Each structure stands twice: as structure tokens, then as C-alpha cells.
């Protein structure tokens, strides 16, 4: 069974058709890249999958059940986590709290436990701490656990965001331009990191990216969007030579 099946997805913002007839099927364990020029509608697709925008039409099936109409927190609890193009962390909170909050739905204790600090509360909190620190260690930011996120350098904030997404306990990870603002060396590190967490946490990854280095390096398949529609799909080296793709990125006449 496919992990994610998107069929005929479309959304209107007023009179604007932002995404039209978007189809995508992802098998467990794949890394799929979603690319396209600015404004092509890639992030809008992410926003529809994660429940932030209800699509105007189309279906989204995750693990065999429709997730259209679910709220973002419900989608997250089913096992889809994401990061954001312009990092969205809980800025005044510590690194540790940013990650721990993602365990909230599975905290396993109630309000009374929390108020009275029952043995169950203590045991579950210790577990959450352990799991959160494991993630921070995996991402090499455990030494900054008590730092407020807003005081971290950009690269570390990206890591915290990935750690937080992993704490959701996802099967499908949506990464929205994870390499934005990184230099080539950092991009290389990121490639390693994505490969590593994919292996370690048994993930399926869908990522939006502009850095072709990263996309060509890591993605097994690519889907190319322009003006809200899919214009090409296939293996990275196929897509790279597709005239439509070149035209979308470089303009008409570039393909000579």
C-alpha cells in the first residue's frame, strides 16, 4: 500500500487557482523532491497535506485513510510532520521545550497527574525527557538544550526544527526548503543528516528545495511544478533534461 496518495488536488484563493490537478503517490521509504520556480504552489501543496488549507477539490489518502478535512493537529497525530520554509519555532522557549511539546499528544498523563506530580507523571516526564534528549543528541544540539531558541544561530534553529518534527513521531516528513540560506558545505551536511534520520527513524520524505545540488543528490524521484500544475516527473537526471523544466526555470528560448 502506498503511504500517501494525492489525487486531483486543487485549491482556489478567491479567483486564483493556486494548485490544479495535483497527483502524487509516495511509497514507504522513498525520498521525493518537489521542485519548481517561486510561486509554483509547492508550499501550498504542503499546507494542504498538513491540513492547514482545506483543498477545494481532490483527495489525500494517508495510510489508507482520507485526511482531507482533518485539522493540522490531527494530521500530525496520524504521523505527518513538517518543517517550514521560514523557520517557525517557539522562539522564547528553550530548545528542549520546543522538542518536548511535540510529545504532548502522547504524554500519557492527565491534568490531575500534572497538578499532583504523581508517580505516573514523573515516569512519563522522564521518558519524554529521555526521548527529547536522544533527538537533540542525534542532531548535535543537546549541549544547547536550555538555550532559548531565539538566541541560536540559524543553522542550529534548522536543526531544532527537524528535531521537533521528528519528535512528532512521523512516518512521513515534509521538509520545506531545508537548505534555504545554507552554504555548499552546510548543504552537504544536511544531505548526510537527512539520509541518516531517514534510515534511523524509518521515514518517508517529501521535500521542497531550490538547491539543485541537494535535490539531485538525495531525491530518488522528482515532481516539478509550475503555475500550480505538475509539468514533469521522473528520475532526477531525466527531469534535468526535460525541456519544459528548463523553460520553467530559465525562460523560453533558453532551450536551444
Amino acid at each position, binding site marked *: 500500500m502506498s503511504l500517501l496518495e494525492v489525487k486531483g488536488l486543487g485549491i482556489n484563493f478567491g479567483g486564483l487557482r493556486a494548485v490544479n490537478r495535483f497527483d502524487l503517490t509516495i511509497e514507504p521509504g522513498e525520498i521525493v523532491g518537489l521542485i519548481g520556480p517561486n510561486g509554483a504552489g509547492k508550499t501550498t501543496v504542503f499546507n494542504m497535506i498538513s491540513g492547514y488549507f482545506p483543498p477545494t477539490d481532490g483527495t489525500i489518502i494517508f495510510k489508507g485513510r482520507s485526511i482531507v478535512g482533518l485539522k*493540522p*493537529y490531527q494530521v500530525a497525530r496520524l504521523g505527518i510532520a513538517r518543517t517550514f520554509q521560514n523557520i517557525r519555532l517557539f522562539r522564547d522557549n528553550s530548545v528542549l521545550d*520546543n522538542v518536548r511539546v511535540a510529545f504532548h499528544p502522547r504524554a500519557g498523563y492527565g491534568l490531575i497527574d500534572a497538578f499532583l*506530580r504523581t508517580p505516573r507523571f514523573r515516569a512519563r*516526564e*522522564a521518558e519524554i525527557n529521555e526521548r527529547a534528549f536522544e533527538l537533540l543528541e542525534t542532531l548535535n544540539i543537546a549541549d544547547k538544550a536550555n538555550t532559548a531558541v531565539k538566541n541560536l544561530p540559524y543553522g542550529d534553529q534548522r536543526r531544532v526544527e527537524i528535531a521537533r518534527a521528528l519528535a512528532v513521531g512521523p512516518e512521513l516528513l515534509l521538509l520545506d526548503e531545508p537548505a534555504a540560506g545554507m552554504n555548499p558545505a552546510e548543504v552537504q551536511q544536511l544531505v548526510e543528516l537527512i539520509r541518516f534520520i531517514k534510515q534511523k527513524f524509518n521515514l518517508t520524505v517529501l521535500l521542497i528545495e531550490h538547491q539543485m545540488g541537494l535535490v539531485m543528490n538525495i531525491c530518488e524521484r522528482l515532481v516539478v511544478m509550475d503555475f500550480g500544475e505538475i509539468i514533469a516527473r521522473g528520475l532526477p537526471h531525466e527531469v534535468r533534461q526535460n525541456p519544459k523544466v528548463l523553460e520553467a526555470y530559465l525562460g523560453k528560448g533558453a532551450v536551444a
Partner: protein
Amino acid sequence: MLQKVNKMLLMVIGAIVLYVLLKIMITIGVINPYWQRVLFYSLIVIVGALGLGIIYGFTGQFSLGHAAFVGLGAYSAGYFSKTFGQYGVLSFIGALLVGMVFAGLMGFLIGVPVLRLKSDYLGIATLGFGFIVKVALDNADKLIPDLGGARGMMGTPQLASLEWLFFIALIVIILTRNFIFSTYGRACTSVREDETAADMVGVNTFKTKLMAFIFGCTLAGLGGGLYAHTYPYICPGDFYFLQSFDYLIVVVLGGLGSMTGTVVTAIGWAFLLEGLRFVLGPQFVDFRGVIYALILIITILVRRQGIFGGKEFGFLVPQVRRGKPDVALRG
């Protein structure tokens, strides 16, 4: 582990020592009945302000109607006590519970429609609720004559002693701290920081806001219940929007997201208000309003994060303990 026990023990011992000191000072007359009243008032403000601290400071929901919930608590608890007052302590506890439940229930009923609103709009909606409560209390005697309406209510037994106020405030501080340093507290602060992101990591943001609002209103109701049993006369004007601003000022001055700040500022606030009365003399007593507004303006200009800026006293912060992971948290 040893350190953790010490921390908690230290806090309780410290509180008991403080209580004994206060008790001695009151008994031998170092604290005269006038300042004793001020002390009592500051303890009541702590309870109410911690409620607003949870709603605004920790969850980021801007409420301008907090005093209305204090008023609902005061009136419901006071009325209960007037009616069943012959049972002494039992009816006092019952009255406090009634005040809490009633304010919490109203918090729920108001919260469901208005918590969908964001920041300024939520402020306007809660401000409106404050007016409704004031007008309702002004005219309450037409339904229940004992509530007194605009003339105010008298006859509630004055059962709130130093013991009650002090230890209730202490329990509220401990429970609030336990809430803040739990997954519920983390859900609250994540909503405050970025509601969309909180939603996307699996936090039911509406439920979280509602829970925080109800908890905060329940504390307001408790503060109101204590108020009604501390002052022989209460009137709707005690719970008007100006009083809501007082709570807001305490929370903002202390620092949003800091319990320590709220508690310290609540005490400082009550004593400053009364202290200024002596400093300024009867002729200029109304200038107090100018002075505390100036303090607020200066704080916002030079130290926007408030006096404590989201920090807590160390003994309030529980240690992070790690433990064996369990499969339950995977997947």
C-alpha cells in the same frame, strides 16, 4: 534526586518560616491592622493575578475582563456563605469551591466563542464581557435581593484569616508551577509563541487555550471568593474594568511568562498602592494613578520583558530528569 527533594523541602520550609514571621509580627503589633489588610489584599491579588498570568503570560490570550471573573467568584461565594454561613469552616470551603466552579464555568461559556479570536479582538470581547458582568451585578438585586445590586452586598462572614489566605496562595503557587512545568504548560507556551506551528506538531490549540482560560478564570473565582470573605462590603465597582487593568499591570510588570514576576509584583503592587497613600498625603492621593501609570510606561520603554522577563526563581523550576525510554512514545 537528592537535590530535588531539597528544593521542594526548602520551598515549603521557607514558606512556613515566612508564615510564622508574619504571624508573630501581627501578634506583637509590628504589622498593624491596616497593613495587615494590605497584606491580605496582596495575597488575594497573587491568586487572581496568577490566573491572568496563565491566560495571558503563558498562553498569550489577551484578556481584559479578568476582574469580572473575580467578581463572579466573589458574589457567588459570598452569596453561598451568606446563605449557608452557619456551618463555619465547612461553608467557607464550600463557598470558595462555588466561587471557583462558577467563575470557571463562565470562563468555559465565554471562552468557547471568544477564544477563536486573536489578540486585540479577544481583548475587546473580554472587555465587553466585563461590562456585561458589571451591569448584571448592578441589577442583580432585581432577581436575588440579597446580592444588593448597585448598593453592594454585605453580610458575608469574614472568615478569611492570615492562615487561609497565606496557605491558599501557597497552594495556588505550587499547583500553578506544577501545571506550567508539565506537558500542558508546554502546550500553552507553544500556543503563545506560534499557534500555527503548535497546531502542526499535534497540539490541539483551541482545547489548550480553553483549558488555560478556564484554569485562569477558576483562580480568579478563588481570588474573588477570598475577597468576599475578607471585606465586609463588596460592590460591583470592585470588579470593573479598571480592576482588570490592575491585574494586567501586575502580570505585564512582572514579566509575561514568569510566575515569580507575577507573585513578586502582586505583593509590590498592593504595598505600593497603599504606601503611596502615606507618601502623597490625603491631598494628592489621587496622583497614585499617575505614578503607577508612569511606572508601567517606563517599564515598557526600558524593560519590555517586565521585571523578571520570563525568568523564575530557581527553587520553582523542577529539575529535568531523564529516564528509560518506552516504546509507547515511538510512532
